[in-house]
């Protein structure tokens, strides 16, 4: 069992810098998820922890030991790859035991570990098959099994579910959560899917363009995002962003005009006072809109598409000047076919960001 520490890790490929000084503490036994859009450097960061890439600068510690110059195999890690990386010419059993066999591990011990992994993942009947004869979900199990067999201190997952269809993805997500609670081992998990991050993580690390934007518990990131990027990335459907300009600012609050809502005004509490005339962005999550008159600022919307899901409905709507918004409402059968809607923004649940995306309240 071990924690992982990154100190100012920088990675350059030639002259291109892809990781800009990442520092991070992963506690022993914690499930940490690296999340961000594609190309944000999350997989590179994971491969640096694995030792498959060298850090250009900075330090990587596993279990308190500096491992920059330690070979991947000696870091006490095991990795599950996006493509599963199963050896196509070996049976499931041979795939599971390959690493141990190649390193001269005693046969009984190898068999014991393979057996145990097979039981944990319920793949006993598949042992004699080749990867080609397995379904996507079964391949995924074998790939995880190969990691379990190593009895690692730290599990690394590189987008392990991205090749599965939606239903299997949910199923395997539950499996991985169960695995973590059974084994209690430190796990670092990379994904671009914020739902996976929210459901699996003890701690989420949001990355963008090679920088760590925010680290925190899932609901903390949701409720209290540090900036507009994190606010927009976490949550599905996404947070609505509305252009606005500051009309007046006083101690602890600011009144802004929603540019595309026909001049509707709203007063929000702020900690960091913007100046009058500043361009800002108001953020409201779809589920925070209230019925007309029940919030602090009513806006009129033309409904584009309404998705009725039975218990909730998502309204995709336009303002007069064409800004797109998503409103989540409790389902009401009488609203089917509605063309217009007035929604209201509650000031206490709205976010305010400056032009650089920095949070102001």
């Amino acid at each position, binding site marked *: 069992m071990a924690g992982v520490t990154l100190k100012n890790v920088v990675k350059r490929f030639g002259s291109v810098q892809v990781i800009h000084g990442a520092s991070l503490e992963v506690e022993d036994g914690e499930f940490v998820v690296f999340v961000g859009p594609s190309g944000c450097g999350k997989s590179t960061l994971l491969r640096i922890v694995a030792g498959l890439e060298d850090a250009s600068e900075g330090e990587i510690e596993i279990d308190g030991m500096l491992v920059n110059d330690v070979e991947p*195999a000696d870091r006490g890690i095991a990795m599950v790859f996006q493509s599963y*990386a199963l*050896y196509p*010419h070996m049976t499931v059993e041979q795939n599971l035991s390959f690493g141990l066999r*190649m390193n001269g591990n005693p046969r009984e011990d190898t068999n014991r570990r393979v057996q145990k992994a097979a039981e944990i993942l319920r793949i006993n009947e598949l042992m004699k098959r080749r990867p080609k004869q397995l379904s996507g979900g079964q391949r995924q199990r074998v790939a995880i099994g190969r990691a379990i067999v190593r009895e690692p201190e730290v599990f690394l997952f590189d987008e392990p579910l991205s090749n599965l269809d939606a239903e299997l993805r949910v199923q395997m997500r539950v499996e991985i959560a169960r695995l973590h609670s059974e084994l209690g081992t430190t796990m670092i998990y990379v994904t671009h899917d914020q739902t996976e991050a929210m459901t699996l993580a003890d701690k989420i690390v949001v990355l963008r363009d090679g920088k760590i934007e925010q680290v925190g518990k899932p609901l903390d990131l949701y409720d209290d995002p540090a900036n507009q990027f994190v606010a927009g990335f976490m949550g599905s459907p996404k947070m609505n962003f509305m252009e606005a300009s500051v009309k007046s600012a006083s101690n602890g609050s600011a009144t802004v005009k929603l540019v595309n809502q026909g001049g509707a005004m709203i007063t929000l509490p702020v900690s960091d006072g913007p100046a009058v005339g500043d361009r800002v962005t108001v953020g409201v999550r779809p589920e925070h809109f209230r019925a007309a008159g029940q919030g602090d600022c009513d806006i009129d919307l033309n409904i584009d598409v309404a998705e009725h899901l039975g218990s909730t409905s998502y309204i995709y709507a336009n303002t007069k000047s064409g800004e797109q918004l998503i409103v989540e409402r409790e389902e009401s059968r009488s609203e089917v076919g509605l063309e217009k809607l007035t929604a209201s923004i509650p000031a206490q649940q709205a976010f305010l960001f400056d032009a650089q995306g920095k949070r102001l309240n």
Partner: protein
Amino acid sequence: MKPQSEMRSKSSREMIRTIGLHAVLVPLAIVWLFPLWMMMVFSTLPENAIFSAQIQWLPGTHFWANFEQLQADTGFLRTLFVSIMVALVYTVLSVFLTSMAGWALARYHFLGKGMVLAIILGTLTLPYFVVVIPQFIMVARDFGLANTWFALIVPPLFNSLGVLFMRQSFSMMPGELFDAARVEGVKEWKIFLFVAMPMARPTIAALCIILFLASWNNYLWPLLINNQPDMMTAPVALGSLIGLTRVSWGGIMTGAVLLTVPMLVVFVLLQRHFVAGIAAGAIK
């Protein structure tokens, strides 16, 4: 929907096209098969039948007698043995050398990689004649190794097409497979031997066939470097008979058949690999 008459005309057009196609291809195919057929026929005829005034279209029964004549002229069995041994050892060695080099060029970053690749590619199309003279001087005079197994097997190992062929095969494999093995602590040479090589089996099969065939049919270099009867290859021994005046042509034809038919059988059985190997040689 088209009228029925036009639909019928479509199938009749196809019929005309089919007939035209075969009217061109069948005669050509017969012309192309003719020399091979005549080789078989000649090898089974006695000398006076080969040089008779009549055309002999069908095989006779003299194959064994002709072969005995060939064996008496050249000791052909010994030269066949030399050819088989050389082709086998050459193929195995060359597959390993080119696979290892192709693996390094496909899957590692290292200092001087660009230069190594540039030299291999840059000298690929240089005619063999540019090197054959120094090779001969070096092997025959400087090393004193004419008429040895070494002389037949080692110099032709420089072949760089195999390197590029294997390199392409290895670079098309997903890198995560090798990373997975690395994370498991598998040594690089074991990854090469137990992961990469088994996965490259189809490519290796194609390469083996091409290499074996090249060695089996190699003529110029063995002609130059090995001229002692007990170290001659079969093509060289057979070639040495062709210019002579008093010689058994039936015997020469049995030799030609023995050199050709095994390769034809291999070709028929492994046509897919053959075609892959030849096509890959041209597509760089």
